[in-house]
């Protein structure tokens, strides 16, 4: 969800206005995804690198996340949205940590659509943590080093909170940046990437349809041949 600050700057607004507009876009995308039968969405809300942004902006974002979760809990329950939060929650303010636990717990039985929100998240840290968990199992004699497989790592990743959809089929990055920026590195091995110059707050239904149409036209071979 890239480009909130640049969208705001282009309009002479503070970055907080950009993030609020970004939230409205997210809401719309979740609604459309549910209508079109998309079963899982993962959104990159805040990376571990974002902690270095100005304190005022970071504090604003943490407050925004809290308010959004509080206000939307009712809607999650009504619309059958299962929410999962990935990232280093120990870095979040205690009130947000508590709210996250509550939202995840209350929505865990919902079945319409899964929404994973990555907050204080780093793809490299996620893989390293998974490897540390596996190393602990080896140390405890539960697993031999020779028996470690890719599935062991996949199971230890935080995205295993929704085991039915471990890997995204399509990754959309807005604002014209052409890279992954530490997002779902392991999981996006075979993901189709779609890049658009549109800033996230301007990303609308037409842009989403363009991304999905592009995806439908891709020929996914997974290393094999299609005859």
């Amino acid at each position, binding site marked *: 969800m890239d480009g909130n600050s640049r969208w705001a700057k282009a309009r002479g607004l503070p970055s907080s206005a950009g993030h609020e507009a970004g939230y409205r876009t997210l809401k719309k995308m979740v609604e459309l995804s549910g209508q079109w039968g998309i079963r899982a969405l993962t959104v990159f809300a805040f990376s571990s690198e974002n902690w270095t942004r100005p304190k005022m902006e970071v504090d604003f974002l943490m407050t925004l996340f809290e308010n959004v979760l509080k206000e939307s809990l009712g809607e999650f329950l009504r619309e059958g949205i299962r929410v999962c939060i990935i990232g280093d929650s120990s870095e979040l303010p205690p009130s947000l940590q508590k709210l996250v636990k509550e939202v995840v717990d209350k929505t865990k039985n919902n079945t319409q659509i899964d929404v994973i929100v990555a907050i204080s998240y780093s793809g490299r840290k996620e893989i390293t943590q998974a490897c540390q968990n596996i190393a602990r199992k080896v140390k405890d004699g539960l697993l031999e080093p020779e028996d470690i497989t890719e599935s062991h790592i996949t199971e230890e990743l935080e995205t295993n909170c929704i085991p039915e959809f471990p890997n995204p089929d399509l990754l959309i990055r807005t604002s014209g940046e052409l890279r992954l920026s530490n997002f779902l590195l392991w999981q996006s091995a075979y993901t189709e990437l779609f890049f658009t110059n549109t800033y996230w707050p301007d990303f609308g239904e037409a842009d989403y349809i363009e991304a999905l149409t592009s995806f439908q036209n891709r020929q996914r071979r997974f290393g*094999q041949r299609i005859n």
Partner: protein
Amino acid sequence: MRKRSRKFVAKILGRLWRLFRRWLFLTLSIGPMPEHIAFILDGNRRYAKKKNLKMGAGHNVGFNSLVVVLRYCYELGVEYVTVYAFSIDNFRRKPEEVKGLMALMKEKIDELLEEDTIVHKFGLRIKFWGNLDMLSEPARVAAERAMAATANNTGPVLSVCVAYTSTNEIVRAIKKSCSTKRDETAEGSLGFTGDPLRDGACGSIAVADMEDNLDSADCPDPDIIIRTSGETRLSNFLLWQSTLTHLQNPIPLWPEFSLRNLIWAILEYQRVYPYFEARRRGLAK
């Protein structure tokens, strides 16, 4: 007589072309230059089909194209070039194609080690990344020989990914880290460092342990990944290493990738460089 004068003209034109290239590359290097470029060599077979070549010929053409592009990269001063030549997933193709590719691999590796190739011209160090045990015996032996023969060279590096996927690379790294830690613990050689991540929970792996055991341990992260034929996915290539890499997917099929495309790729990289550098400094903290 006519043949001699034609050869003379060709020699002069060749020299002029090299001079022009030198001037072009000098101009380009006024801006920031990538240290490491990685290529996903996609489109060989589609090229062969397009040109009505016989099956397998596309990969031969692709190899010749690779040698030319490598020359340009090293002339530009790029220190590291990595190429995705054969994925573990490709083993699932038809046995005849896989057999053909293994044979081609051995043939081309041997060819590269001969005199008057880019390996000697630039003093290249060749590395092979991947699960080499999965290769055919002749291909594996050729790869190991190439690595040994060029180990003491001091020029730029060419890393060839064969029998490679990034997820497999990470699993092999964790296996190595765990085995090493276990052996150190058993021997009692793991002294106390005062670092809680290394002491106490002896099975604990640090990020450094993992990165030291990846195939890419001695190599900086790629600045650019270029995937030809317009496909926009990584297909399990350098997932860990590519977090800040500029991803490019030019339309030409691999054998059609030309100097013009390479120059464009670098210009695109130079355009976004200031934003990249700021992010890279943030990640390093």
